[in-house]
């Protein structure tokens, strides 16, 4: 067993863990933050994406012990309970960037880092930027729109209409 301290969404947590415990299970089982999902177990789907020291990682392929002394951000940390949604969350909600919602937290955590590096991404940059996250429901278009919306909001610009736009 290893003693670790991980700061999750700003709160330090100490735990004694088996080295083989995956970061995603630490988050879901030990800390009860079930917004981070497990989809594939082979680092293919991105549903388990969290930020580790600000960088998006697939927490099914990171050991909890690797996060010792580091900070982790999960979907639950995007806005305080009861507080207004952050621009990304709002973007996904307003643009119907989610159906079943299972991929959504991972998508948003990935997009958080993407927008931090590239505040005004093109559609193509978004498509490549979230190419590590699978969605089986939406057809992706509304996810791209959601991230464009969030980018605009974060830049203080008026986001495009969230109504369905037809060609």
């Amino acid at each position, binding site marked *: 067993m290893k003693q670790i301290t991980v700061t999750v969404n700003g709160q330090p947590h100490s735990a004694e863990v088996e*080295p*083989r415990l995956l970061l995603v299970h630490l988050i879901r089982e030990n800390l009860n933050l079930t917004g981070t999902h497990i989809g594939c177990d*082979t680092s293919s789907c991105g549903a388990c994406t969290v930020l580790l020291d600000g960088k*998006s990682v*697939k927490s099914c*392929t*990171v050991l909890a012990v690797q996060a010792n002394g580091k900070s982790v951000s999960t979907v639950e940390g995007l806005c305080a309970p009861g507080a207004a949604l952050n621009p990304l969350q709002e973007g996904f909600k307003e643009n119907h960037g989610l159906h079943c919602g299972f991929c959504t937290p991972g998508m948003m955590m990935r997009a958080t880092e993407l927008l931090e590096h590239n505040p005004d991404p093109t559609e193509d940059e978004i498509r490549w*930027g979230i*190419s*590590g996250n699978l969605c089986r429901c939406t057809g992706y278009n509304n996810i791209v729109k959601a991230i464009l919306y969030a980018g605009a909001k974060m830049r203080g610009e008026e986001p495009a209409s969230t109504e369905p736009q037809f060609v």
Partner: protein
Amino acid sequence: MIAADFNYEAPTSLDEAFTLLRKYGDEAKILSGGHSLIPMMKLRFASPECIIDINNIPGLSDITREGDIMKIGALVREAQVEHAAELLEHFPIFADVTKLIADPQVRNMGTVGGNLAHGDAANDHPAVMMALRASVVIAGADGTRVVPIDEFFFGFYSTAIQPDEILTEIQIPMPSPYTGSAYHKLERKVGDYATAGVAVQLTIDANGICTYAGIGLTNVNPLPMRAARSEEALVGKKITDETIAEAARYASDDCNPSADLRGDVEYKRAMVGVLTKRMIHKAAQRAVA
């Protein structure tokens, strides 16, 4: 999926790491990015007794130029490469290759050193490093040695790194003026391993003669492969459609792919030919640009 139980050590110096390596011998595995090792452990293809996490060892995470050598530390992440201005300026091939390695999250963790040390011909950096004629610095308790990339790969998942050693750095010779490099791999969908991949670096002199050619192939040979005959077909000659076609034909003939879900042998050979042509063109264009 959960790995079998193991001990976890996170040394803060290379010496400490060497001590651990001596203690566990074959039963230890080095963890850098972990995105090849951890999946293998979860699948229980690998059940090491001890994981030695080298991420807390300082000094291994930089990309620096020292004279005629570009140095990439063992812990440099793929994502870091994507934004390394000086490296990309001299070696545009890194912009090509990193975009095609897995996906952004994996590139945030995965390291260039790990991509090589894993000893997998399906990985992309081995071919790139062959095209660039890089060397690998391997450190042990008794000192360090510099191994040319052509002497680095021994077999499937097997490299020149001994059980008590650690890959610490990759060294790439700075290119002459008028050098260009390019990489592409054919993938079934974005983020896939290569069906076939080709890395090319060329130097073209004022007379249009090719003075340097490096060509590496991905996932079409049991070991990462240098297309030596293709290189010879270019050096000392003008880059013309004929010389390109000849180089492509040699690459296609000399590789030794195996049939799998990505396609049969003949198909893969054909793809090596097409990709070799295109990458020579692209590298040549970049060389004279």
